[in-house]
């Protein structure tokens, strides 16, 4: 399913037939990656960070998430699902945690695992990393793939500040792959590992991970996509309560605030930021070294963290409240993580330094860039300044830039056109 026409994979798809050219997506895109031309929306793959804002904004089902088909699990002799902690906030309170978890198994997996099972280990590893890298302050969490891509395109100077270790779902993937292939005597390609994820960014990360060259997951299913199927199994499971391990204390991973609180301790000061606009404001301040007093900043593109992912079914605040209740009322689960610990000590979860995907520069040469900026300013004085997006660019400034970069023309401005036709009358 990987689209080879583009350098960058994106887990969203624009269905031209459904697109009305309304520009709702153009206006909500934080990196100005979408344009409407000839009444159809187009995505600039170099600018898109997979935040999913456009998926939520589109009322015509024209921008839809790409997801793998559940049939993909049949290709493997043995299949494992790793569930994002956000999944457990999607059910009404009469559905118990074990029932919700067992329902995933019913989809046809041989085994289910949870991101939540290694949260405690992750907290220790993150603290260790923060202490080992005293020269970098603040360190920025890399769990949210949309934030990682945002930094690559718009704040490349902050790339060295990213936490450079695998995320919990990938740590778990590597561990399960190692363990299951040995225990079940399977070849690497006979074992399929799939993620159950709350957002498009995580689907993208599965298909085009940053900073790793190792075999990770074999596909990703969104919570929204499997939800209908899962619900069919719930009733039966409620009548026959399954025996299955759960990790309530680890569900914190779905909530950006709680994760930050857990890492916070005597010698580590943390800050939690969620929502893409807040994330951008904070990254800009980090760039100017105004937030050096923090050791670690948890950044999540969605409201409240992964519970706010656009492929969830429940409202992020309700989901957060449910997960908080489960954390509060749940017991600590004893887990043997010595295998993961060994892999970690062997450097198995190290990640390469990520490269920039700069989109901000008008030109490599400053003289040429200044020339383009002057041209942009000239067009800007001609444009009405309403930022109505009717031309298909998000703002008048963006249209001016599009014109100078040869991607649009001044005739695209509807307001100017109307004024001209009035003058001619």
């Amino acid at each position, binding site marked *: 399913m990987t689209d080879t026409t583009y350098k960058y994979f994106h887990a969203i798809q624009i269905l031209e037939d459904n697109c009305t050219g309304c520009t709702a997506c153009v206006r909500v895109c934080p990196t100005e990656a979408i344009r409407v031309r000839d009444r159809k929306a187009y995505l600039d793959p170099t600018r898109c960070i997979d935040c999913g804002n456009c998926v939520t904004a589109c009322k015509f089902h024209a921008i839809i998430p790409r997801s793998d088909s559940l049939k993909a699990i049949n290709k493997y002799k043995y299949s494992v699902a790793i569930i994002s902690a956000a999944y457990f906030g999607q059910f009404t309170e009469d559905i118990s945690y074990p029932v919700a978890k067992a329902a995933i198994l019913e989809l046809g997996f041989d085994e289910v695992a949870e991101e939540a099972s290694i949260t405690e280990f992750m907290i220790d590893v993150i603290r260790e990393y923060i202490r080992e890298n005293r020269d970098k302050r603040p360190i920025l969490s890399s769990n949210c793939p949309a934030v990682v891509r945002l930094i690559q395109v718009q704040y*490349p*100077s902050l790339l060295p500040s990213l936490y450079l270790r695998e995320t919990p779902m990938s740590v778990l993937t590597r561990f399960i792959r190692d363990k299951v292939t040995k225990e079940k005597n399977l070849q690497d390609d006979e074992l399929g590992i799939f993620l159950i994820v709350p957002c498009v960014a995580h689907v993208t990360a599965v298909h085009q991970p940053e900073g790793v060259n190792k075999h990770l997951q074999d596909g990703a299913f969104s919570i929204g996509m499997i939800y209908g199927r899962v619900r069919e199994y719930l009733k039966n499971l409620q009548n026959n309560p399954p025996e299955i391990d759960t990790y309530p204390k680890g569900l914190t991973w779905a909530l950006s605030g709680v994760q930050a609180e857990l890492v916070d301790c005597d010698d580590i000061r943390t800050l939690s930021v969620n929502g893409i606009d807040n994330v951008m404001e904070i990254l*800009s301040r980090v*760039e*100017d*070294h*105004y937030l050096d007093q923090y050791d670690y900043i948890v950044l999540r593109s969605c409201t409240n963290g992964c519970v706010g992912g656009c492929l969830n079914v429940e409202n992020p605040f309700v989901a957060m409240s449910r997960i908080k209740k489960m954390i509060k009322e749940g017991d600590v689960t004893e887990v043997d993580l010595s295998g993961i610990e060994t892999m970690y000590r062997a450097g198995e979860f190290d990640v390469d330094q990520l490269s920039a995907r700069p989109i*901000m*520069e*008008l*030109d*490599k*040469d*400053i*003289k040429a*860039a*200044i020339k383009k*900026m*002057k041209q942009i*300013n000239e067009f800007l004085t001609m444009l009405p300044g309403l930022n109505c997006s009717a031309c298909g660019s998000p703002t008048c400034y963006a249209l001016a830039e599009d014109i100078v970069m040869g991607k649009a023309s001044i005739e695209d401005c509807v307001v100017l056109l109307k004024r001209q036709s009035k003058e001619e009358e």
Partner: protein
Amino acid sequence: MNEFWHIEPRFEAAVKGYFAQPPQAELELEFPVPEKDFNTAGNGASETKNLLKRLGVDSDTLRRIAVAAYEAEINVAAHSKGGIMKCLIYDDLIHIRFQDEGPGIADMDQAMIPGYSTADELVREMGFGAGLGLPNIKKNSDALHILSSANNPTTVELLIFF
């Protein structure tokens, strides 16, 4: 009038040459800085940084410009009756000039001491007024020029080379 000059030695000739006959700027930006308005104070610095990012100015220089401009902008909002921030951009440097409407700096030497502040109650309540503004601007600029006296407008201008 009291005058303060700070010039990084390696830029001495370039700075003097620049001020002797300031050339026509390639790009200009201008922002009003209203008195005690801490919601908009900082917008000028942030917009300037965004523009320079588009020109491809390197990240370390960008940071110095953002910090110096932000501190100076906050100074105008916190201590003066309001003023104007003007950026003159060239292909090798930026010249940022802050012109306020008074009441001026009475003791220039003291103002340059880290931790010294004349900020009033309101400004301190807003979390500003730690007395690090001017020293921070000086630290991040290649040249800093201040012209002021008590009960007169103040001009603060700085140069940073790319």
